[in-house]
């Protein structure tokens, strides 16, 4: 034993165990899938369609809900209002709810008899077993990631910068788009990617709303229950690879935007 001391060794061992726990199942998944099985699954139209559906619906859900969620996050960061604590708690509720329970709750809301379902029916849309319904289910469970991250980003923008902009004659809307939003951008992008990722991986709420059309997590489950592990495994590997590729691309794109530094003296104040 040496300059690191016993405490550091214990830390190292515990951390390694956790990492092993996270990596080992994934590694096993990849090792147990043969190249032939993998290629065959990759060519499978049903698998391709489900992965594509998962990606675009998760992205659409994130994008459209972000339009309302980002200003809402600013409101939470900047304004005090009655019952704000309860509102904050409500936002985190989907994280602690069992997702099948969330799906059941949402189903009551968007089925033909539910308030939103009735409105959609007027437009000739049945939200159940529909990509729009899947998007709502994904958004329901993943919105907290965007809202919390964006709220923290806005809270880190010194309020004085916004006040300075107002003092220079800018409208509240202009201050939001030229000062608050650009300075909170990195947190918002992080929240966006987290919401998108969470939406893509959602199973419990979506399977209640729409078994068909099948998103990738439902398809993997369906293959597992119908044909067993060996049939589900290649689809899971393909989905993981595609998901990782998408996140890597999104991360790289967001990194390319030059970080906006908020000087320490501002951040502290």
């Amino acid at each position: 034993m040496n300059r690191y001391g016993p405490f550091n060794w214990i830390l190292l061992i515990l951390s390694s165990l956790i990492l092993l726990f996270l990596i080992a199942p994934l590694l096993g998944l990849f090792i147990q899938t043969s190249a032939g099985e993998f290629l065959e699954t990759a060519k499978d139209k049903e698998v391709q369609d489900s992965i594509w559906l998962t990606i675009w619906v998760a992205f659409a859900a994130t994008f459209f809900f972000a339009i309302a969620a980002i200003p809402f996050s600013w409101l939470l960061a900047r304004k005090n209002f009655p019952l704000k604590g309860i509102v904050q708690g409500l936002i985190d509720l989907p994280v602690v709810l069992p997702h099948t329970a969330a799906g059941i709750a949402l189903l009551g809301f968007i089925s033909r008899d539910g308030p939103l379902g009735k409105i959609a029916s007027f437009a000739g849309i049945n939200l159940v077993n529909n990509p729009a319904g899947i998007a709502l289910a994904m958004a329901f469970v993943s919105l907290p990631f965007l809202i919390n991250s964006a709220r923290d980003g806005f809270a880190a923008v010194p309020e004085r910068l916004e006040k300075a902009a107002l003092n220079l004659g800018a409208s509240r809307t202009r201050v939001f788009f030229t000062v608050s939003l650009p300075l909170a951008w990195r947190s918002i992008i992080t929240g966006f990617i987290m919401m998108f990722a969470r939406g893509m991986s959602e199973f419990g709420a979506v399977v209640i709303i729409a078994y068909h059309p099948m998103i990738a997590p439902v398809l993997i489950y369906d293959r597992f229950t119908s044909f067993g592990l060996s049939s589900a495994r290649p689809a899971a590997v393909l989905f993981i690879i595609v998901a990782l590729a998408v996140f890597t691309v999104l991360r790289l794109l967001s990194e390319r935007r030059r970080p906006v530094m908020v000087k320490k003296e501002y951040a502290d104040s």
Partner: protein
Amino acid sequence: MLTLKNISKKLGEFHLTDISIEIPDGTYYVLLGRSGSGKTQLLELIAGLNKPDSGEIWLDGDNITADRIQGRGTGLVFQDYAIFPNMTVFGNIAYSLNANRTERTGMRRRVESVARELNILHLLDRDTHHLSGGELQRVALARTLITRPKLLLLDEPMASIDASLKDDIKRLLRNLNRKGLTIIHVTHDYREAVSLATKVGVIHNGKIIQEGKTDEVFRRPVNRFVARYSGIRNFYRVTFRKESGNWEAVCNDGLTFLMSEDEYPETGLMILRSDDIKILHEGPSNGEDNCFKGKVTEILPSEYGMEITVDTGEVFYVDVSADTFKEYPVYENSEVWISFSRKAGVALHGTS
């Protein structure tokens, strides 16, 4: 003309209380106070960042108390400048012009004009992350001046810049004021008030405790707080008496000063500015009102030159310029005479 009428505002545990000020056009008004005295809060009320609980703010005949921040005609430069870090220097200065949808060539011309005036033309295309404190301040000033404010509000403008740049900034601010711009400058440093202000207000615990022309405030502080705040270090608890038609102030140890005014209370504090006291190298001569022999106990460099502490039984702090000190040096433990005019001693009626 800016008029504050009975402004009060509660901010947590802190209160701004019944503040009334009149600031004529073209005034350089320095609001002097310690940190936490309420000076920045008052500035923010004038700028409209907060609204007063009661009272009114009038600017050029208009009641602007409830006006939006954008429409008040006040330009505020924050203590930390609040430069937008996501914009270049040009973007910062042109920000208000963008807001007003100024046409692009006109915008460039106006930005360059104000940047030239503030000597930052060469910085226009730079981003703001690597600018010095002095450069950031000029950008903040340019950004505000381009809006052509009726009233320029400066929050501790000297607090974050190097001592070497302070004179440049003072010169700049003085020039802006000479061109007719009304300025309210908030600071904790009385020396800024001495060198810039035409009018001074001293704020303490959310109340204006003295206001007036700079010279009046510093020559005739109303109480010990203002006196200390205006750099006075010589305080003497005295009894006033009239002897042979002349008023005298008698210290506890019997030291007696001749005074010049017609009326005094029975007891009080007498103050004396350090630069009103002279050190006599030749000993007392005729015509000196107050002249005492003492021992030099300490000599310290000060911004004026030297601060010499003389103990005559009472302690006197005497400011001597560097040149005078060079020509007529004094030494610790040596005996010297000090003298001051009877007009130099000021009686404080309040002793807080």
